[in-house]
């Protein structure tokens, strides 16, 4: 059987698995649809959270991104893991105790205001839509690359699958399919990494091989070798970055805080039975995520050394194109790698200066790994299934936030308070189906800004939700208007800065024009500070929250009687 047949077989089998789970886990009530009935085991929920969290981009692109960025890539590693500490310690247990279905539910009730609820719904929808469009695109790209169908067809297949299990099963279907998807993903990510680690350093664990000596007999450490190669070829030293310290600090903080403020991540902690489970579940989620996030930088370093040596040859004089290994030629057809013989010597050469003759796409680092390491074809097929799983699981989680925001926050809690549970469930399904079609449309015809905006969703979440929720829990006297003003000023400040540098005047997007040297990627951190400051200052003027709200805040601080998620 060829690669193509094997890929169809393995991806097809995983689809059957997801469908089977969907039929088994149909949702019968809004509570099952929104929070899986509040009965998910914390370890399962941890796995589902990890699958939800790891998108097609982090599965396919992250290792490659770090491979090109070296030390600077740490912002993603720290930013996308450290947020879970904040989530576990400062948000998850209290929001679980509060026991409603959504983030706007909390903001609306805690700040006793429909305005607050509406602002929160708009933020949640905006963040989720930009995100899901990127995911749908990811599904399309994965399908087209591995199964050689065109992107539109890929998106349609993806929609059909997600439709099946999320519209039918809601959170319940999504949670259990995500558990299966996590298993597919982690297996697909680790197998090639372990093989490459063994080949290059003799260590089974990539995390250890990362800091070990090379097996080529030279006795040099992998990272020293990489630093040496980088300097020689005109790149910045691998273990040293080119971003300023303040920018690295602010970007890391924006990603961390943004992670803790993303609605599709927070909502996962409403699905476990108890406060104790919410705490534990965050720990498991981070453990499952850390498996991938500590392996990724090792893959980055291995594949960078591997790539440079393959292209430039052991003696750094260039490998004749005629002798290039087959993976270079295979991936050349997809446009992910390209060679232009500038000096006409028939040899390939890769460098960071004018000698460079190669065009290398960052995605190749993960996608071509199994071929670089000469692994059997079922591993290549598995990587395809992993990429698809990553894209589908994240889309489904986001879709649920969108449908919940519409049916629950907008209709039930705002416009049509008298609808029955059955009607609300129907609206939730209609909303999910509609959102999926919009997302699919955006996936097929991506507006140019999608890719850029996804990264900024973190900054927006950091500057809006995070401070409002933190103040809502830890500052019981904080009142409605200051919190709303804080959210609005935080998100407006952040969005303005980003829109100015990314869309209005992209030519000015340089360190010397930035506020204190903070790039648009990191500005969310400053937006968060603005949010806190505005809230505190106006609180001093406008006075404290009513007694019953303060009592409510008191009650979410203690686990006893957390009960199940409330029915309304």
């Amino acid at each position, binding site marked *: 059987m060829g690669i193509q047949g094997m890929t169809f077989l393995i991806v097809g089998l995983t689809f059957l698995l997801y469908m089977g789970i969907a039929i088994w886990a149909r949702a019968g009530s809004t509570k099952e649809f929104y929070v899986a009935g509040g009965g998910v085991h914390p370890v399962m929920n941890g796995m589902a959270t990890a699958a939800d969290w790891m998108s097609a981009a982090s599965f396919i692109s992250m290792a490659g991104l*770090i491979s090109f960025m070296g*030390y600077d*890539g*740490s912002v993603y*590693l*720290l930013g996308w*893991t*450290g947020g*879970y*500490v904040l989530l*576990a*310690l*400062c948000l998850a*247990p209290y929001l679980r105790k509060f026991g409603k279905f959504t983030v706007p539910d909390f903001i609306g009730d805690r700040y006793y205001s429909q305005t607050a609820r509406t602002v929160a719904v708009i933020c949640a929808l905006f963040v989720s839509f930009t995100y899901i469009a990127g995911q749908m695109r990811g599904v399309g790209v994965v399908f087209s690359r591995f199964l050689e169908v065109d992107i539109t067809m890929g998106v349609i297949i993806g929609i059909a699958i997600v439709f099946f299990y999320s519209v039918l099963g809601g959170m319940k279907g999504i949670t259990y399919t995500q558990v299966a998807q996590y298993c597919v993903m982690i297996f697909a990510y680790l197998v090639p990494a372990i093989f490459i680690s063994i080949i290059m350093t003799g260590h089974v664990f990539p*995390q250890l091989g*990362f*800091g*070990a*000596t090379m097996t080529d007999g030279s006795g040099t*450490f*992998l*990272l*020293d070798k990489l630093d040496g190669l980088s300097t020689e070829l005109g790149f910045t030293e691998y*273990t*040293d970055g080119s971003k300023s*310290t303040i920018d*690295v*600090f602010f970007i*890391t*903080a924006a990603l961390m805080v943004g992670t803790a403020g993303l609605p599709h991540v927070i909502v996962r902690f409403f699905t476990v039975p*108890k*406060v*104790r489970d919410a*705490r*534990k579940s*965050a*720990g498991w989620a*981070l*453990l499952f995520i*850390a498996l991938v*996030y*500590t392996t990724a*930088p090792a893959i980055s370093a291995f594949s960078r050394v591997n790539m440079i040596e393959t292209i430039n040859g052991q003696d750094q004089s260039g490998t004749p194109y005629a002798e290039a290994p087959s993976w270079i030629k295979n991936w050349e057809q997809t446009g992910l790698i390209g060679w232009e013989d500038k000096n006409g010597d028939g040899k390939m050469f890769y460098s960071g200066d004018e000698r460079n003759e190669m065009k290398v796409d960052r995605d190749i680092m993960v996608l071509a790994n199994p071929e670089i390491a000469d692994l059997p074809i079922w591993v290549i097929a598995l990587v395809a299934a992993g990429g698809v799983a990553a894209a589908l699981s994240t889309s489904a989680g986001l879709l649920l936030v969108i449908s919940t925001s519409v049916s629950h926050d907008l209709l039930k809690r705002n416009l049509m308070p008298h609808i029955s549970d059955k009607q609300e469930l129907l609206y939730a399904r209609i909303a999910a189906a509609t959102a999926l079609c919009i997302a699919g449309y955006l996936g097929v015809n991506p507006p140019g800004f999608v890719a850029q905006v996804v990264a900024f969703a973190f900054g927006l979440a950091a500057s809006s939700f995070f401070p409002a929720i933190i103040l809502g829990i830890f500052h019981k006297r904080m009142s409605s208007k200051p919190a709303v003003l804080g959210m609005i000023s935080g998100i407006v400040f952040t969005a303005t800065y980003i829109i100015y540098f990314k869309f209005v005047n992209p030519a000015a997007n340089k360190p010397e024009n930035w506020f204190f040297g903070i790039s648009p990627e990191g500005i969310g951190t400053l937006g968060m500070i603005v949010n806190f400051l505005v809230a505190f200052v106006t609180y001093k003027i406008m006075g404290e929250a009513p007694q019953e709200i303060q009592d409510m805040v*008191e*009650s979410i*601080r*203690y*686990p*006893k*009687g*957390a009960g199940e998620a409330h029915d309304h």
Partner: protein
Amino acid sequence: MAFQSEEQKAAYWRRNMGLLGKLLTVWFVVSYGFGILLVDVLNEIRFFGFQLGFWFAQQGAIYVFVILIFIYVKKMNDLDKEFGVDEE
């Protein structure tokens, strides 16, 4: 409310905040401290084949994060029991 008295309630919250303070200090030090602000200083130190600052930024801090959450889970469960507010 399951607390014996208002003082008990305040004491529980104070202990909770104390624990949060300690854990978040470690969280800050390993990531922003060792991995970012002090990275150049720590990179002078070798840790196997790594420069120590680089290792914290790409490996060490993440391990510490995971451990921190599990310490928090353990300590909070103990605290809940001590004050009789644990869920059965």
